C-alpha cells in the first residue's frame, strides 16, 4: 500500500458524498434524507481541509493556508442552522400530514 496522501482523503470524501446522495434519493423517511445531506456537507468539509493541508498554489509556493479550515467551520455552523430549520419543517409536516414519508407527499404534480 502506498503512503497515505491527498488522494486517500479524496476517496473517503467521494464515498461519503455518494452515500449522501444515495440516502437522499432512496430513503423514504424525511429524517433519513436530512442525514444524507449532512453526509454530503461532511464530505465537502473533508475536501476543504485536505486541500488546505496538502495544497500548494504552485506559483509562489504559498500554502493554501488555513482558509480551508475556516470554510469547514462555516459549513458546520451552516449545517446546524439548516438542521434546525429542516427539523422544524419535518415536524410541521408530521403535524399536518401525519407522515414523514416523502414519497407519499406528492399531491403537487402535473
Amino acid at each position, binding site marked *: 500500500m502506498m503512503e497515505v496522501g491527498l488522494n486517500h482523503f479524496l*476517496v473517503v470524501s467521494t464515498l461519503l458524498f455518494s452515500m449522501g446522495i444515495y440516502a437522499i434519493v432512496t430513503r423514504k423517511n424525511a429524517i433519513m434524507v436530512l442525514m444524507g445531506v449532512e453526509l454530503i456537507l461532511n464530505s465537502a468539509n473533508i475536501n476543504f481541509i485536505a486541500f488546505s493541508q496538502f495544497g500548494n498554489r504552485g506559483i509562489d509556493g504559498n500554502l493554501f493556508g488555513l482558509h480551508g479550515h475556516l470554510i469547514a467551520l462555516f459549513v458546520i455552523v451552516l449545517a446546524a442552522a439548516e438542521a434546525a430549520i429542516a427539523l422544524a419543517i419535518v415536524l410541521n409536516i408530521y403535524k399536518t400530514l401525519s407522515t414523514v*414519508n416523502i414519497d407519499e407527499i406528492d399531491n403537487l404534480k402535473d
Partner: protein
Amino acid sequence: MNVYDIVFYLFAALTVISAFFVVTNRNIVYSAFFLLFTFFGVAGIYVLLGADFVAIVQLIVYVGGILILLLFGVMLTNKITNVEIKTGTINIYPAVIGVGLLTGSLLAALINTSWRSVPASAPQATTAALGTILLQEYALVFELLGIILLIALIGAASIARREA
C-alpha cells in the same frame, strides 16, 4: 506503513462503513447511531489532517447538536410505542446506477488530477491563527453567519410555535 497510515485506515474504515450502514439500515434509530460513528470518524480524519480546532467543533456541533436534533426528530415523528421504527426505500435501481456512475466518474477524475500538493506539514495548533483570520479577513462572512443563525432561529421558531 507507519502509525499515521494505520490510524488513517482505521478512521476511514469507521467513517465509510458506518456511513454505509446509515444509508442502508432499515431502522432509523440504528441509522442515527451509525451517523454518530461517521461523525466521529470524520472528526478523526480532521485530526489527521492537522485540523484540531475543526475536529473539536465537529464533535461539539455535529455530535452534540445536530445529531441530537435528528434523534429528536426521529422520536417525535414516530410513536415510541411502535416497535417498527423502520422505513422503506424507493428508486433503488436508478439510484444505484446513478450513484455508481457518479462515484465512478468522480473517483476517476479526482484521482487522475495532478493536484498541486506538497507533503503534509507537521501539525500545528491552529486555533489562534484561525481566530485571527476569522475576525480580520473573514469578518464579513462572520457577520453574515450571525444573520444566518438569527434567521434560522426566527424561522424555526416561526414554524414550531403554536398557532394562537
